[in-house]
């Protein structure tokens, strides 16, 4: 335990003292603030939204607009968090966790100390997760403060609950990317290789997954020239299922349901259609219903994270560490 805490404190201090950590932190803050406050950021759209008459109780979640509304030219804060910020932070914190210590010869010195070997990998993982948590806390608080100040809306208790959940889910999501990066840092000796592999996976999921999903859908459920409703539904169904192989999509769906309870994702609509035959169920979901909807998403992200970490853990524990 003492070994774990020593490694944890050192890694945490490293994350915040190194240029890498500082630059990462500044980037995250700047992008987040810019997404909301920037010249073509979300604020104008939010004002317009707030002026439209309240429909189906949309206005009840006005504070959350800050996080989910896209600006004129800029995507929403949520989009940045989902696609870029959290994955990049997780990847950058983990991509050289183990192999850089192997290459610099510090790992054999570290393992010659009276600590259990897993203290090293656990301590590093924990320090990464806590760093992600600190960054997310700061970011969410700053964006909230801006909203508070500029728009003059205070969050309701329901909104606070949703934000807390969003915070927790985002940390889990960050842990997934951290785990992925650490997995490659255990397997590949070269930092460049592990970095490229992790970034490659991120790029595939981030940019090419939707393409791959619609391609799959068109092969598995081809549509005619004038598609009928069942054809269309089948195609969309396959497309959604395929794209859910991407953790980015899973997290995106989950957080959209969490933070924009009045809107419906395509997946939700399909689910509703199959369940009740209804096309459209007006009104925001309650918190309980929201959790029920996103529960499978969270379970999958959590399970994937645990799996990735377990593989790295086992490999690291069995590996022979030589200094040459």
């Amino acid at each position, binding site marked *: 335990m003492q*070994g774990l805490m020593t490694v944890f404190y050192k890694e945490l201090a490293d994350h915040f003292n*190194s240029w890498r950590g500082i630059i990462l932190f500044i980037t995250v803050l700047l992008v987040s603030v810019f997404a909301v406050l920037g010249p073509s950021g979300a604020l104008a759209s939010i004002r317009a939204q707030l002026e439209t008459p309240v429909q189906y109780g949309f206005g009840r979640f006005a504070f959350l607009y800050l996080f989910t509304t896209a600006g004129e030219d800029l995507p929403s804060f949520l989009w940045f968090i989902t696609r870029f910020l959290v994955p990049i932070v997780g990847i950058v914190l983990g991509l050289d966790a183990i192999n850089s210590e192997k290459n610099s010869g510090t790992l054999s*010195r570290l393992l010659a100390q*009276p*600590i*259990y070997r897993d203290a090293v990998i656990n301590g590093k993982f924990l320090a990464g997760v806590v760093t992600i948590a600190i960054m997310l806390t700061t970011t969410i608080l700053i964006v909230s403060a801006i909203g508070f100040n500029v728009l003059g809306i205070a969050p309701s208790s329901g909104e606070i609950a949703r934000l807390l959940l969003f915070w927790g889910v985002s940390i889990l999501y960050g842990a997934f990317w951290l785990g992925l990066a650490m997995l490659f840092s255990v397997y590949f000796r070269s930092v460049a290789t592990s970095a490229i592999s992790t970034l490659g996976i991120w790029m595939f999921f981030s940019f090419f997954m939707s393409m791959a999903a619609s391609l799959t859908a068109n092969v598995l459920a081809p549509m005619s020239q004038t598609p009928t409703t069942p054809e269309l539904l089948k195609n969309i169904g396959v497309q959604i299922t395929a794209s859910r192989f991407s953790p980015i999509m899973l997290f995106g769906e989950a957080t959209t349901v969490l933070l924009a309870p009045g809107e419906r994702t395509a997946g939700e609509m399909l689910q509703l259609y199959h369940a009740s035959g209804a096309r459209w169920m007006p009104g925001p979901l309650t918190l309980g219903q929201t959790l029920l909807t996103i529960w499978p998403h969270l379970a999958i992200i959590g399970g994937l994270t645990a799996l990735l970490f377990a593989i790295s853990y086992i490999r690291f524990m069995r590996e022979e560490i030589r*200094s040459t």
Partner: protein
Amino acid sequence: MSKLAKQLVVQTVDLTKNYDKTTVVDRLNLRVEEGDIFGFLGPNGAGKTTTILMLLGLTEPTSGTAHIYGYNSTREPLKVKRITGYVPEKVGFYEDLTASYNLAYTARLNGLPEELVIKRVGESLDIVGLSPVAEQKVGEFSRGMKQRLAIADILVKMPKVAILDEPTSGIDPEGIIQMLDMIAEIAKERNMTIIMCSHQLYQVQRICNRVGMLVNGKLVIEGLLDQLGREALGGGRLRIEIKLAETTSKLVDCVKRIKGVVSVERSGDLLLITCQDDLRAKIAKAIVDANGLLVEMKIQKYALEDIYRKYFREA
């Protein structure tokens, strides 16, 4: 002369390590006693580092056991690592952090209380002469300084045994001698048992009292350094071979009379002379004085080096 039996610090029994089908360490029986400075010699790839990894419990032996101070290295690695300091061959430090922070990290990993951490770090840096650069980043250090820092790194935990894997690699000749003398001094002052791996014979001869030579995973010689010199290696004596145009018993006699000559053998027109020192000049003079005709003179120096070279060539 008889001393009480010293405590056994390192003991391996039939220690064996196979990688796939190649045997890297083959039924190694190693014994190191308290207070020894044990020179672990061997060419590259002889299995020295693998042996060390097994001693520290960093890799599991295929068969056999290793004990340090009675603790089983495979089953109780934490106890072993608490009393053993290890400097790996390519020792590394966190380059962005200061020398004292690097050492403090080691101290904390060893569970030292915080007030002791600073004290120990200061003392250790003092011993290796790095106090003036304690607050400098290790990235700015030269290779020699890093090696000294590595010694300080093991002093921080005050081990009973120190295992140094090529502690002098990459240092200039002057630095090597300083380093070796420093290791010997520390060992003496703190009564620390030291195992030093090297493939540089003269380094081992300088400070070690016992040596073991590992070739292809097997211990080919092992023992006290001076004993090895006397017994196995031609008595540390010199053999001089001379060729004469004509050999007479008179000439043989006059060579035998030279002080320091142990024996003279005659085979044809060759004389094989065994002596304590290099007596070539005196022998030549004696032969010339006795009107002998000296055709050729060769000297064979027997030392640990010959055996070492012989095995190295084979390896």
